[in-house]
C-alpha cells in the first residue's frame, strides 16, 4: 500500500505562466476507493486551476461531509480549506466569502450533502448568487455508509442487490435552473476533455457556478442496472455543446466543431466558445435550456456540457452593495469610524 506519491515528476512537465508545474497543485494521496470518479474530478480541478494560472494559496476549498467532501484533501494541498458540517458548506462558504471576497471558492459536495441534508442551503446559496464554483460529485448513492440510494438516484435504478429505486430523482441541474442559477453545467468524471474547460469557465464566472458531475461509485453503484455507472453514463451521455474555454486575448482553437458555434463573453474578458449540437439551442436562454434539458431526459439521454450561463448578473456582494475591499483587509478606523459618525447616522433618522 502506498501512503505517498513518489516525489519525482516528469522532468519536462510544462509550467504555467507562474512558472509552476502541476505538482504545485497536487494534494495528498487519495484514500478513496480505487477507481472512484471523485479522483478524476480532483485531477480535473488540478488541471483547471493550474491552467488558469491561479496561485494555489488564492483558492479556498470548502466541503461538507461524505466521500466527495473528503476529496479536497487530494488536490491543491497549498490552498486554504474548510471541511465543514454535513450539508452546511454553502453557509460556511458564504461567511468566508463575506470575510474575503478576493479568494476563489471551490465548494465540493456530493449528492447526499447537497440533495438531502444540504438541500435548503443549496437552494439559498443559488438565490444569493454567491461567487463560487459548486461541484457536485454525484454518484447516486451514499458511498460512505455502504451505498444506500441517494436523492439523486434515478427512479428504477437498481442497487447492488438488484432492488430498483422507487422514488423520483432530484435533478440538481433542473432545480438550479429553476432557482435562477447563473451558470449551470453537467459533466462526467470520465470526460476530462469536457470537464476541464467547464471548470475553467465556472471559475471565471462572477457568480454562482454549478457543475453537477456524474462520478461513478465503483464500490456500490457501478453494476449493470445502475444508471450512474461508467457504462450506463457513457451510453446515455449527450453533450449539448462542446465547450472550449478561451482566456482573454487568445485565439479560438476549438477543433471539435459539430454544428454551429456560439461565443459567450464572460464578465472578466474571458469567453466560452461553444460548438453546439443544434442551432435551436441557446445556452444564454433559460427557457430554452430548461426545455432542452427536459427533452433530453424524455429521450433517456444525459445532457451534459454548459447548459445555461448568464454572464452579466449581480452576485452576492453587488446585491448587498458590499465594499470592494475584502472585509479582512478593512482597517479598524474604517470598520469603526467612531462616535461622531454614529451620531451623524443617528441624526439622519431624527
Amino acid at each position, binding site marked *: *500500500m*502506498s501512503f*505517498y*506519491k*513518489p*516525489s*519525482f*515528476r*516528469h*522532468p*519536462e*512537465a*510544462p509550467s504555467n505562466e507562474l512558472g509552476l508545474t502541476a505538482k504545485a497543485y497536487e494534494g495528498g*494521496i*487519495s484514500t478513496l*476507493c*480505487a*477507481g*472512484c*470518479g471523485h*479522483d*478524476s474530478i*480532483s*485531477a480535473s480541478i488540478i488541471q483547471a486551476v493550474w491552467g488558469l494560472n491561479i496561485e494555489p494559496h488564492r483558492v479556498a476549498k470548502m466541503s461538507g461531509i461524505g466521500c466527495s467532501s473528503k476529496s479536497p484533501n487530494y488536490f491543491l494541498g497549498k490552498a486554504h480549506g474548510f471541511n465543514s458540517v454535513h450539508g452546511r458548506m454553502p453557509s460556511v462558504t458564504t461567511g468566508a466569502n463575506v470575510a474575503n471576497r478576493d479568494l476563489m471558492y471551490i465548494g465540493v459536495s456530493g449528492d447526499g450533502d447537497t440533495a438531502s441534508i444540504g438541500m435548503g442551503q443549496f437552494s439559498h446559496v443559488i438565490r444569493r448568487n454567491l461567487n463560487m464554483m459548486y461541484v457536485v460529485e454525484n454518484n447516486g448513492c451514499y458511498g460512505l455508509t455502504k451505498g444506500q440510494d441517494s436523492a439523486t438516484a434515478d427512479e428504477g435504478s437498481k442497487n447492488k442487490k438488484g432492488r430498483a429505486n422507487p422514488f423520483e430523482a432530484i435533478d440538481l441541474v433542473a432545480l438550479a435552473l429553476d432557482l435562477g442559477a447563473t451558470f449551470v453545467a453537467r459533466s462526467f*468524471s*470520465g470526460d*476530462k476533455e469536457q470537464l476541464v474547460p467547464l471548470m475553467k469557465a465556472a471559475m471565471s464566472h462572477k457568480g454562482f457556478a454549478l457543475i453537477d458531475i456524474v462520478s*461513478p461509485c*465503483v*464500490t456500490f453503484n*457501478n453494476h449493470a442496472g445502475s444508471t450512474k455507472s*461508467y*457504462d450506463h453514463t*457513457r451510453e446515455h451521455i449527450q453533450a449539448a455543446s462542446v465547450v472550449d474555454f478561451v482566456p482573454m486575448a487568445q485565439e479560438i482553437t476549438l477543433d471539435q466543431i459539430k454544428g454551429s458555434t456560439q461565443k459567450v463573453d464572460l464578465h472578466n474578458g474571458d469567453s466560452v466558445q461553444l460548438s453546439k449540437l443544434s442551432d435551436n439551442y441557446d445556452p444564454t436562454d433559460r427557457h430554452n435550456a430548461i426545455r432542452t434539458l427536459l427533452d433530453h431526459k424524455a429521450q433517456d439521454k444525459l445532457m451534459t456540457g454548459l447548459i445555461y450561463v448568464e454572464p452579466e448578473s449581480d452576485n452576492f456582494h453587488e446585491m448587498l452593495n458590499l465594499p470592494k475591499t475584502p472585509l479582512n483587509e478593512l482597517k479598524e478606523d474604517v470598520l469603526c469610524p467612531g462616535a461622531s459618525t454614529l451620531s451623524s447616522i443617528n441624526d439622519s433618522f431624527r
Partner: protein
Amino acid sequence: MKATDISNPEYFHKVVDCQYACPAHTPVPEYIRLIGQRRYSDAYMVNWESNVFPGVLGRTCDRPCEPACRRGRVDEEPVAICRLKRVAADNKDDDDVNARMPLIPTQKNGKKVALIGAGPASLTVARDLMPLGYEVDLYDENPKGGGFMRSQIPSFRLPETVLDQEVDYVLDMGVTRHFNTRVESMKSILDKGYDAVFVGTGAPKAKDLRIPGRDEADANIHLGINWLENVAFEHLESIGEKVVIVGGGNTAMDCCRTAKRIGGKDVSVTVRSTYETMKASPWEKDDTLAEGIPILANHSPAEFIVEDGKLVAMTFNIVESSYDENGRRTIKDTGEIVTVECTDAIMAIGQDNAFPWIERDVGIEFGEWDMPVVDKVSFQSSNEKVFFGGDAAFGPENIITAVAHGHQAAISIDLFLNDSSVKDARPAPGTNLVSSKMGIHQWAYDSAVVDDDRQASAHLPVEQALTSRKIESEIGFDLEAAFIEAERCLNCDVQTVFFEKKCIECDGCTDICPTNCITFTNNDEEGDLRSKLNAPSTNKDQDLYVSTDLPTGRVMVKDEDMCLHCGLCAERCPTSAWDMQQFLYTVTKAGNEPAPILVEQVGGKREQAA
C-alpha cells in the same frame, strides 16, 4: 499504432534499461533487490551466471548500464550499479558460493577445445563448456590466468585476491592450463587435432608515438600497456621522479596512478582533447585528480627533449578543439608551446590487435586493418573450427563485452560440435513473467520510490593509498550505504502489464501516475500519438505500450520513458486491469537449455532451481 506484443521477450527486456544496455544482459534489478535483502551470495550468483567476474567488474566495469539507468532521467544521478555489484562480491559467503558452482561431469563428451589467451573471453568460454563435458586446454604466455584483467589493471584498483578467486572458479572446473606458453603458430594448434579453437588474445599491441626525439629517448619512453604488465608481473619496480603520461583514456589513468605509487613524484597526464571530452571514465578522472595528479588538457605532444642522451622534457603545442554542427572535431594549433620536464614518459594512446602468429593459409580470412573476418552473431571465422571473441574479434572494448562474446562463442562451439547450425539453432532467451501481487495493494517488491541521493563510495586517505601499488584505494560501500543505494533502484524489471479486457476506463491510473506516463486517447500513427500524450514524449528510443481498442474506441498508451515502476497505477485500478509483474530475462548459455532461474524463495528457504 499496432497493439504492443508483450509476449515478445525483447519488449519488456528493453524496459529494463540497465540490463538491456549491458552487453552480457546481467539482470541488474534482480541482484540489486537481493542486495537490499542482504542476500549477498544470491546476488553474487545472479551476477556470476551472467558475467562470470562480478568481483572484477564491480571494480573495473565501464558501466554501460549506469548512463542507461532510468533513475538518471528523473533524479540527478543513476543508481551506483557497479559498486553494488562489488558489495555482492565482497560480502558473499565463499562456502555457499563454492557449493553452488556447476557440477563438472567426470565422464567427458570426447570433444576437445583449445582456448588461446586466458582473458575474460576465453575464461567465459571455459566456464560455459566445462559443465557440458568438454575437455578444455587453455594457453597463455603469462604464468597466471586473467589476461588484461591481470596485466593492465593495477592491483590498487583490482586486488589480486579478487581476481585470483574468480579466475580460479573457472580453472578449478578442470581446465587444462598451459601457462607460460606463448602460442606462436595457429597451424601447430590446429595440428593437435582440437575439435574447435577459440581465440581470445585481446588487443595486445600498444600504439607508439613517432615524434622527434623518440629514438634518442627510447630508454625512458614506455608503452602504456606493456609497462603496466611489467609492473604487474614485477619485472619493473620503479620509475623516475618526473613522469609524463601521454593519452587520456583509462590506461593513461592507470599508468599515472601506478607511477605515483612506484617512485613518481611529479606525475602529470597530458591529453590532446579537452578535459570534458577525454576518453577516460569520469570516475577514473576523479580518482586521478584526488591523488594529486594534474590532467593537462589541450596538450598535443611535439617533441622529446634529450640532453646528454637522457630524456629531460617533452614539449607540447597548445591546441584548441572546436566542433561543427555534426559534432565533428577540428583541432587547431594556438601557436603556444609548453615544456614539461620529465625523466620518463609513458605512451597511453591506444592499442591494436596483432595476429602475427596466425598463418594466412589456415583458412582464416583476414579483412580490413588486418583483422580476421568474424561473424557478429556466431563469432565463427571463415575456418569453421576457429572462433574469436573479446578484443580479438572486433578490436578493443572492455571486460563485460568480452564476457558477452565468450558466452555467445561457447554457444556456437557447442552447436558446431553437435552438428547444429551456429546461426539458426541459437537458443531463445529464458524469460519469466510473474505477478508480484501479494494482496490488495501489496507487492513483492519495495514499490515506494525513495528520494535518497546516490551514495558516495568510500576511498582510503590518499597518503595511505599511495604507499603501495597493492593496496586497494577504494573501500567501496559499507552495508548501510549499500542498502540505501539498493533501495534507489526503481525495479524497472517489475513491469506494468495491462489487461484491456478488465479496464473500465475510469482514469484512476492516469490521475495517480506521478510522471503522467499513461494516456487514454484515440489511436494514431506513432508521431501523432506521441504528441497527444499527457506528458511530453521526446525520448523516441523508449517504446510506447499500446493496448488494443477499448470499449470507448480509445486505446491505452503508456510511454515507458519516465515510468517509476511505483505500482500506483495498479493500486488505483479497481479491476486489476494493471498488474505489476516481475520479469526475468536471462541470456541462454551453451547447452541449449533456457538459462535457469537462479534462486527462488521456497518457504523461506533458499533453493537452487534446476
